[in-house]
């Protein structure tokens, strides 16, 4: 399908493709096994300007938006969605600053992100998953400072990021109007890291606990205004969900890529398995579903970049649809590979493990369906 990419968009896609093939592919299995953070790859992405693609030129970016971020995420995810997430979650972590930061916050932090500084977004807690309003982390005002206490859980890029957007309760009595978003720098006294999770998939991505113990954050680090924490979080997620959708599309496409090759090489009953209609139809479905997911992700991303305000439904749709497609396509990919697909020596079992997360994070696909449904009767 031709999506009429601009010259710059084609450059982004092609360069990410080249980096994936030449630099990421040889180390995919190694990082999947070790669970180390792929610093060497982040360094290459940074030097090649990939972190600049979604940042305005004013902050040393290339002037793109969610569409460009999605393109890069998709192309990198085609080879390793765990490694791609180091980049994509930096988009998520810095998006609140881009959307709600004042000029000096944007100058200070977005220029660093453009250069490849890793960022993270911290909303989830042990008892606050889908129900983010149940968070226990507090930020008490003390003169010009806020004092943060609490634990954030499962934070992507936790520990490796230098810049964190953290949502905490400044006024419990006000419920969802009592949350505030802060920019917290790594190394701030009272800010430390807890366990690093041992995960099923996206193992090259670091998922960690953030621990705040009397961590003093200056009021200049507040994003938007006190009390706007939930709005910051929700508007951010509305804009970054196509990124998860793009990750899912990339995983699905990566699975199709290897299936096309394998099904021609593997022979049973004296012929390549690609001759069997059962396999051919499975591949046709996989391609159809992936293309449909891609079209929806691109359309939603372009809609967001156009400046449209009402984007929750479309953003939820593309993330949810693409996540479900990635899960189905990678499950079928393992089927096409047969027993070999179940083995770690072949790439598809990893893709299947990786795909699962796209149905869970940035809001589970059940929650996405809730968002979509609640928008259906809106005028």
């Amino acid at each position, binding site marked *: 399908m031709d999506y009429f990419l601009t*010259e710059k968009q084609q*450059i982004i896609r092609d*360069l990410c493709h080249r*980096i994936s093939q*030449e*630099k990421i592919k040889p180390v995919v299995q190694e990082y999947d096994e070790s669970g180390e953070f792929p610093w060497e790859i982040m360094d290459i992405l940074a030097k*090649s300007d990939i972190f600049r693609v979604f940042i305005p030129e004013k902050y040393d970016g*290339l002037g793109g938006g969610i569409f460009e971020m999605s393109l890069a995420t998709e192309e990198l995810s085609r080879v390793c969605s765990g490694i791609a997430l180091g980049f994509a979650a930096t988009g998520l972590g810095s998006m609140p600053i881009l959307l709600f930061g004042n000029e000096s916050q944007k100058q200070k932090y977005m220029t660093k992100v453009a250069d490849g500084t890793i960022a993270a977004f911290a909303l989830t807690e042990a008892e606050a998953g889908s129900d983010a309003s149940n968070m226990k982390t507090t930020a008490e005002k003390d003169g010009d400072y806020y004092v943060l206490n609490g634990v954030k859980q499962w934070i992507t890029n936790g520990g490796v990021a230098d810049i964190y957007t953290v949502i905490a309760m400044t006024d419990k009595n006000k419920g969802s109007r009592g949350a505030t978003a802060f920019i917290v720098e790594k190394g701030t006294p009272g800010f430390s890291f807890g366990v690093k999770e041992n995960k099923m998939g996206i193992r090259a991505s670091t998922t960690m606990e953030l621990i705040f113990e009397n961590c003093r954050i200056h009021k200049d680090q507040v994003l938007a205004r006190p009390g706007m924490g939930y709005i910051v979080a929700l508007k951010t997620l509305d804009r970054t969900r196509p990124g998860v959708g793009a990750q899912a599309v990339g995983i699905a496409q990566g699975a199709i890529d290897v299936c096309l090759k394998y099904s021609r090489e593997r022979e049973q009953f004296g012929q390549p398995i690609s001759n069997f209609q059962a396999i051919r139809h499975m591949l046709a479905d996989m391609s159809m579903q992936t293309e449909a997911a891609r079209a929806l992700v691109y359309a939603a991303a372009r809609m967001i970049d156009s400046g449209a305000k009402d984007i929750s439904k479309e953003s939820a749709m593309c993330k949810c649809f693409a996540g479900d497609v990635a899960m189905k396509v990678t499950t079928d990919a393992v089927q096409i590979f047969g027993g070999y697909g179940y083995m770690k020596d072949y790439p598809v079992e990893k893709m299947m493990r990786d795909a699962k997360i796209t149905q869970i994070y940035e809001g589970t696909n059940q929650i996405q369906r809730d968002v979509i449904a609640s928008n259906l009767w809106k005028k």
Partner: protein
Amino acid sequence: MNIVVCIKQVPDTTDVKIDRNTNTLIRSGVKSIINPYDTHAIELGLQIREKLGGKVVVISMGPPQVIDSLKEAVSMGVDDVILLSDRAFAGADTLATSYTLAEAIKSIGNVDLVICGKQAIDGDTAQVGPGIAEHLNTPHTTYVNELCNINSANITVKRMIEGGYEKVEMDLPALITVVKEVNEVRFPSIRGILRSREIDVPIWTSKDLNIDFTKIGLDGSPTQVVSVSTPQINTQTEIFTGNAKEQVHKLLEALNEQKIF
């Protein structure tokens, strides 16, 4: 630090074929690339600039299609590129080539360091780098695999020799030629690619240089290639049949017959 990197566009030898009738390279359909060693020279130039500041200028002598290779250098982040292209330059051997490149480097002026690849994968002579240094009357070191130190006055490098390496210090200006081990070549950047699409590559002809016309091109070349030929390959293959035991037996017989053991 003003650095000049000399590059050559070469056919990608991974898919080069030779026409057995004419004994020449079949160039049609063969991709042209920057000589692989030269990409390491560009990388080293960029790394030195990142450390010391200054400018990296990439030059190449060749036909207009070499513009593509120079644009690729721009996409990696070099400051300027210059193509030396003129019918008068054509047919140059390594002496005339190094003379022409040296004159271009003189015209650029104030150059502290010249970096070349150790050799071009098509000609394999390894003569042009040292030749340029001779024409410029500067010291040079070949086969550099590590840059140990560089400042505004001198450079210290390691060069590969059989069974080890030599550490060499030279006053600047100087010339070095590098091997692949010297660094890992970066990818282009998006900003670099965008700039490479826009840039108009300046072309210098013989008239732009202050040169002696008897020293360039075919006429200025004391060595000339008389003919190129490829060795005959006489491989006879025999495929043994039978079960494994029989095949091994036949193989041993054949090896004995040939007196390989």
